[in-house]
């Protein structure tokens, strides 16, 4: 009965997403695109955080590098967008492999510090390497290309770009979901709960952590690649640690224990941001206070707490 209910709710959300450009005001197409891309970004973060139990404060490095990759390829070679996005995924994965190789060796405290530090290294490099990245101004002025050669959709039309993002995010999420449900994902969850025991079973914990981190980097790179043509710029802000704070808050908001938690959190986050920035530009302050309150009192997240109530789980437990 409950699985039927879940399917109905999911189908309704999907129908709403497909219908959005036809029923909602123009402004909401932009918000919808942002929610989908940032949701994918947060979901990739949650593969590392919620599933593998490693808290990364440098996830924006892969998102930002993905954005720069697509922006640079569009600027210099005008490849079709799908090829650009593939480059973004590759760039995110390679960077995550390097940073992960150095960061997964020790415990969680080290991991949090190292991901933040290496993330800021990437930020500093993007800031200083002017000949490649154009410094603090970032890469702008590139033209959008067709999705694939011969496909004549006008990607500059926000509604068309929204559908492209919707399709690609759904596809990527499905792949991510299958990864989480696979035996690989099962090992990751076991590592989160008890790394020592998993190691005693003869499984190389570090290799699994590194693999999860690399996959997450690839999907974060894809999210960044989708964001660059939408914003029409790739800037160092997208690499800064405050950008890394966003998927953290989205995941905590939605709930790290559920696959859709980060997407739900991204929706709450983006809507809240667009509403609050009407009153004040101290959005980061609100973000910090919200994160503190969630950690102190609602550790299971909004979606998680709701679902737990429905299922009758004791909400005092850990995710």
């Amino acid at each position, binding site marked *: 009965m409950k699985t039927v209910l879940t399917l109905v709710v999911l189908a309704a959300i999907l129908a709403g997403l497909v219908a959005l450009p036809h029923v909602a005001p123009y402004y909401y197409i932009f918000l919808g695109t942002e929610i989908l891309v940032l949701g994918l970004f947060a979901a990739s973060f949650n593969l590392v955080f919620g599933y593998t*139990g490693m*808290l990364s*404060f440098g996830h924006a490095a892969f998102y930002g590098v993905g954005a720069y990759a697509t922006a640079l390829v569009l600027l210099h070679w005008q490849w079709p967008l799908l090829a650009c996005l593939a480059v973004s995924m590759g760039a995110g994965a390679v960077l995550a492999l390097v940073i992960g190789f*150095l960061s997964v*060796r*020790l*415990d*969680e*405290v*080290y991991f*949090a*510090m*190292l991901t*933040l*530090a*290496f993330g*800021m*290294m990437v930020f*500093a*490099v993007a800031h*200083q390497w002017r000949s490649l990245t154009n410094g603090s101004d970032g890469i702008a002025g590139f033209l959008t290309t067709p999705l694939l050669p011969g496909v004549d959709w006008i990607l500059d039309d926000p509604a068309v770009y929204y559908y492209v993002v919707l399709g690609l995010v759904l596809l990527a999420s499905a792949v991510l979901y299958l990864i989480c449900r696979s035996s690989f994902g099962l090992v990751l969850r076991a590592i989160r709960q008890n790394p020592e025991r998993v190691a005693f079973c003869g499984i190389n914990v570090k290799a699994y952590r590194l693999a999860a981190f690399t996959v997450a980097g690839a999907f974060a790179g894809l999210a960044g690649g989708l964001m660059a043509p939408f914003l029409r710029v790739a800037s160092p802000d997208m690499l800064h*640690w*405050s950008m890394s*704070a966003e998927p*953290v808050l989205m995941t*905590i908001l939605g709930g790290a224990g559920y696959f859709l938690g980060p997407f739900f959190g991204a929706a709450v986050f983006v809507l809240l941001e667009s509403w609050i920035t009407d009153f004040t530009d*101290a959005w*980061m*302050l609100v*973000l*910090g*206070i919200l*994160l*503190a309150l969630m*950690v*102190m*009192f609602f*550790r299971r997240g909004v979606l998680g707490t709701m679902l737990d109530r429905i299922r009758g789980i004791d909400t005092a437990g*850990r995710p």
Partner: protein
Amino acid sequence: MTGFFTALLNSLDIGLLLFVIAVGLNIVFGVLNVINFAHGALYMLGAYLGFSVMAMLGWPFWAALVVAPIGVALLAVLIDRLVLRFIYGREVTDSLLLTFALLLILNESVRLIWGSGIHVVEPPALLDGTLELPGGVRYPIYGLFVIAVGGVLVAGLWALFNRTRAGRIMRAASLDPEMAQVLGINTRAVVTGVFAFGAWLAAVGGVVAAPMRAIDPGMGDKIIIESFIVVVIGGLGSFPGALVGALILGLIHGLGGRYLPDVNLILPYIGMAIVLMVRPHGLMGRPGAS
């Protein structure tokens, strides 16, 4: 040759200031088992409070050096009692998340109160100007003052931990909090005290750094990343590690800035990466110590 000597003094300047920040991070981690991501923000707050004490109240630098760190320490007591107390006894993840949230809150509050611009603090008249050292090297007196403050703090902290009852209580609480409590130590008060002491150290570093570097809202981010590199190089939780790590990073900055300006920016990270690959627990750290 005099250029090399100046670069060495610069390295010592940067290194000892970094030690003051990183050792606070270490002390708090030792007792609370929390890496305080907001430690750099407390350093920045010290600098800004010092600036306001001087610019708005018109008090001298020395008064700011006393008053601003006490203000930051009091704020830390409030943070501990109102916010951090919720996560003691929970998983490490929660403490990381909560201090990260504090970092966002403090950073943005500083920006709201003091603006995004750069503020400048003049060194006190006594320490203004340069001094000719034996060997014909001219060096700012204030830089020598920073080295002296760093030296005093290194010696003072060493004595605190090894020669006083308060230091032994802190070490006992970090080794085995339950046993310490059984022996009649109020570990709850020790935790609050240590957090406030770490904040005080960070703020002292902030006030001392203010006349040497410009005060801007990004200064906390810079110092916390550097402090992380220091504790990773030296070994998390190790007092000599913090000193060695800070001096190495100081040398990387001081000599790298002079001889390898193009790659100066990523040299600290390369140093950190080498240490991680050769000695993952840091030069002075022991496996299992963290």
